[in-house]
Each structure stands twice: as structure tokens, then as C-alpha cells.
């Protein structure tokens, strides 16, 4: 299947090579068509969402459906922000996400440095414990964690959503540690000769050289926090404290007949920050996905 022209023996008969490359280009052509169809199918839901978001109330429920509305109604976006306090939710989400990103990056990069560079008895065992927490379903700790936060009086505050991120995230530590290990130890030695302590090595050698990995961790933390639903649903009770996902769900449950055009408009607005980050940091993001998936 994965034939490559370059793998054909250079000494092969011209006739054989010719037949092979014809078959090869047909194969690539067929693949390209299938991939393109798949890409269109992937994009249809998004197109449908955009199309619905600019339809008038009447046209939303038109059968057969109309892809391009007879009149493009941008006011649905304004209405959506009035039906629910969308802007307040957006500020709340941004507030939480910003603090989570900072917490995750700072704490995980420190911990990863310890595991990548500093020797201590039992370190390997601790790293194994760290890896196994990645496999632990969050549900096991869900109830006790809630009870702890309740005892602290933190229910209906943002603390339960933010504070845990300052205690390092196993996945981020793993990713950063793998990256730090690729930085040559000679650089550490050079810094030591110049009189740097461990903090100096971390700050002047490791951190500046790890910007791509730190960006990956930051981006993953951003997506996880921005899209997270169960945590905010459990901990936030006051409507004005809701995040976007909880607010969107509220939108759904509080309206007898669903205003789908407004709902889709609000969903589009909720997705925009993610899409922007994705388009600007696509390579970083995809590399991060690959790195975590290929560790097998």
C-alpha cells in the first residue's frame, strides 16, 4: 500500500518502472479523492453550524433545508449574547483558563526538571507513580475532591477549577521531561562551571531551550480548561459565575423551544478562541498529540 517511488530499485527495468509508476499515480489519485471526500464530510457539520447561525427564526425550521439563507441575519449573534449573559461567561472562562495555563506551565516545568535532571533515591519509583496517575480515571477521586473543596468552603468559587493546576499535571510533566532529556548535559556542566546552581540551570539553560515544549503544554492546558464542563458544572452554582460551556448548557435547558440559530451562534463564538489558537499553533499542537501518542 505505502509504496514509494524512491524505493523502486534504480537498476530496475525501465518497462517495469513505467508500469509501476502509472499504477502508483492512479493509486495516489484515488487516495486523494477519498481524502478530499472525507475532508468535505468533516467540514459539513461546521458549515451547517455557520449556516444555521445566520438564519432567521423561520428559516431554521425549513424543510428541505437551505444551505445559504435567503437573508443573512447577523443579529442572531447579538441576540445570543442577550438571551444568556455570554460576555460574562466569556470573561469567567478567560479568567479561569489564564490562571490554569500559568499554573500548569510553571508547576509542571519545575517538576519535569526534577525528574529529568536531578538524582534522588526513589526517583524512578516516583516517576512510575506519576505515570500511573495518568491512567487513573478522574472519577475515582471525584467525590473526595468535592468533599475536600466543600470543607474548605470553596464550592461556588473558581478555586476548585484553578488551584489543582498549580500542583503539576502528570501528562505535562511527562511531555516536558521527555523534552528536557534531549537537551545535552554538557550545557548543564558548562553552566555549573560558570557557577550556576540548579535554579540557574533550570532558568538559563532548560527553560529557554524548551519553548516549543512549554508552548505545547500551555496550549493543551488552554484547550482542556476552556472546554471543560464537568468541573464547572459541579462547583459553580451562581449563574453569573458560569463558564461558557455551563452557560451554553443552561441555554439549552432553560428554553422550551430551542432557538437553534442563537444556540449555533453562541457555539461558534465559544469555539472561536480554540480555532484561533489552533490555526496559529497548529504545528505545536499536532506535534504534542504525536508525542503523547507515540510513546508506546
Amino acid at each position, binding site marked *: 500500500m505505502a509504496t514509494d517511488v524512491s524505493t523502486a530499485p534504480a537498476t530496475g527495468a525501465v518497462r517495469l518502472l513505467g508500469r509501476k509508476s502509472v499504477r502508483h499515480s492512479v493509486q495516489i489519485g484515488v487516495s486523494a479523492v477519498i481524502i478530499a471526500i472525507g475532508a468535505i464530510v468533516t467540514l459539513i*457539520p461546521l458549515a451547517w453550524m455557520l449556516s444555521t447561525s445566520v438564519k432567521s427564526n423561520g428559516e431554521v425550521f425549513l424543510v428541505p*433545508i437551505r444551505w445559504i439563507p435567503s437573508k443573512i441575519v447577523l443579529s442572531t449573534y447579538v441576540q445570543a449574547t442577550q438571551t444568556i449573559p455570554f460576555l460574562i461567561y466569556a470573561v469567567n472562562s478567560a479568567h479561569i483558563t489564564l490562571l490554569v495555563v500559568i499554573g500548569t506551565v510553571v508547576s509542571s516545568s519545575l517538576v519535569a526538571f526534577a525528574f529529568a535532571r536531578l538524582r534522588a533515591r526513589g526517583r524512578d519509583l*516516583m516517576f512510575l507513580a506519576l505515570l500511573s496517575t495518568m491512567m487513573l480515571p478522574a472519577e475515582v477521586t471525584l467525590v473526595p475532591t468535592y468533599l475536600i473543596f466543600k470543607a474548605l468552603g470553596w464550592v461556588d468559587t473558581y478555586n476548585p477549577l484553578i488551584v489543582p493546576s498549580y500542583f503539576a499535571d502528570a501528562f505535562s510533566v511527562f511531555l516536558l521531561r521527555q523534552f528536557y532529556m534531549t537537551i545535552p548535559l554538557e550545557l548543564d556542566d558548562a553552566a555549573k562551571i560558570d557557577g550556576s546552581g540548579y535554579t540557574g540551570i533550570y532558568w538559563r539553560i532548560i527553560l529557554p531551550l524548551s519553548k516549543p515544549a512549554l508552548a505545547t503544554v500551555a496550549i493543551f492546558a488552554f484547550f482542556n480548561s476552556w*472546554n471543560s464542563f464537568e468541573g464547572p458544572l459541579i462547583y459553580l452554582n451562581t449563574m453569573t459565575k458560569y463558564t461558557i460551556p455551563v452557560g451554553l448548557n443552561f441555554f439549552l435547558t432553560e428554553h422550551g423551544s430551542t432557538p437553534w440559530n442563537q444556540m449555533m451562534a453562541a457555539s461558534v463564538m465559544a469555539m472561536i478562541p480554540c480555532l484561533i489558537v489552533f490555526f496559529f499553533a497548529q504545528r505545536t499542537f499536532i506535534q504534542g*498529540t504525536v508525542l503523547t501518542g507515540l510513546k*508506546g
Partner: protein
Amino acid sequence: MARIANARSSPRRGSLARREELAFYLFASPWLIGFIIWIAGPMVISLLLSFADYDIITPPSFSGLDNYVQLLTNDDLVWQSLKVTGLYSLGAIPLGLITAFVLALLMNQKVRGIAGFRTIYYMPAVIAGVPVALLWMWILNPDFGILNNALAFVGITGPKWLFSESWVIPAFVLMSLWTIGAPMIIYLAGLQGIPQHLYEAAELDGAGPWSKFTHVTIPMITPIIFFNAIIGVIGSFQIFTPAYVMTNGGPANASLFYGLYLYNNAFRYFKMGYASALAWLMFFIILALSLLVVRSSPYWVYYEGGRGDGGI
């Protein structure tokens, strides 16, 4: 470890090693403290709670094995939620795996514009959560949704999807296929990481395209398939957001995913002890399934340089 032992044998380096160890604990302290407060502590509490009744208002009371007896013998909804989760996994995991793998194979063939296609396929994975759930509710709407309208276009009367007991799980499976971009990229990277010389060697041995596929590509990619399969099983047990938002378990509990049932027990019925027992049942099921996959892996997973250690 050997190096540490060496360091300790010389007294002068001994103090250096101690300084290094102290630095380790300082740098690792966020995780070490976090491990105690957010993982180890809660696990102990959860285990204790699973042997108790606790409704948050009155203090917990020890109830022995009651919760476990109840959930194993006297709660039809546990079995219903296991059935829902299992059926969904049986549909979504193999289908997702095959689709993602086939797409990756196609994209690995020097097709022009790969970067663009990769972006498109990956996009749905980026916008996870509630907006996606809302979008799919609208797509799957029996009367006005795009799916049934497309089916009507080719003369098929579409099912009621989320409103039908028999079609709600297929609807969730369909939705899961929209986000195969992430595993696809992992497979693609895996395929691109297969050393070219293996294919060349196979060719010298007279292998055709099919034989190269079955004897080089498949063996080289199985560790990744294996990893994705485990992640898929764990993921199915944790499905919450789409189930909560789109159907809330309905109709007639036909989409009562295990994660949703656990949430309901904890935060709707405030049965904290029972929810903890459910969490431990889930923990052991996931552990057993993962071990099953790991133990069976020597029969179908190829690790370069002998047997691997199960994905770490």
C-alpha cells in the same frame, strides 16, 4: 541508581549528592504535595467512603459491603450503564480505529496538500465539549437536522436518533467518528516513522505491496494501535459531557453512560458512598480490561528489539 551509589561512597561527593537530592525534592514538591492532596488522599477517602453511606448532610455511617452488594446484585441501572458503555465501545473503538488508520494510510502516500487535509481532519478534535454536543443535537434533529435531510434526499426515512432507544448509541458512535483526527495524526506519524530500509529489504525479498503492508506496516504500527485501544476503553468509561448535554441518559436510560450514572449518584442523589463504590468498580473494570489488552499484546503487538513493557 548505580551512579547514586557511587556518589555516596565518596564523602566529598556525598554532600553534593545530598544537595542534589534536596533540590530534587524542592523542584518536585508541587507534584509530590499534589499527589498527596489530589490523588493518594482522595483515593483513601474514596475507598473508605465506598464502605459507607454519606448524603453530605448527616455524617457518614459505616455500612460494610452494602454498597458493593447493592451495585452488583440489586441495581439494574449499573448493568444498564455497563451495557450502554460496552455497546458504545464495541462500536466506536474498532470503527474509529479502522477509519483513522485507513485515512492515515491514504494520507501517507505523498498526496498533495496533506498539511491542509491534516488541519481539516484535526479541527473537530480541537473544539470538543458542549458546543460540539449542541451542534450534533442539531445535526441529529429528526425533522430539521442535516443528517435526516440528507437521508431523505436519497429516499431513506432517517431514524429518530437521540429520541430512539435503539438509535441513540449509533448516534453517539457516529458523532465519535467526527473526532478521529487526533488518532489519525498519531497513526500518520507512526507510519512516517517506519524506516524506509525495512520496505527496501522486503522488496529485495520479492514482497509485493500487500505483503509489505502485512509484514512491515502492520507489525510496526501495532504498538500505536495497542496504545489507542487502551485509551479508547478508558475514554468510553469517562464519557460524560455529550451524554449529560444531549440526552441526559435518555430515552429510557438507553444512553445512560457509566460516567453519567456515577455523576447522577454523587451530585443528583447525593449518594456519595454509593458513587465511590461505583468509581471503584469502574477502576477495576478499566484495570482488568487494560491488563487483558497488555497481556494479550505479545500475540499481536510487535515491539522492536523484543517484548516491550506495555507502552511506557
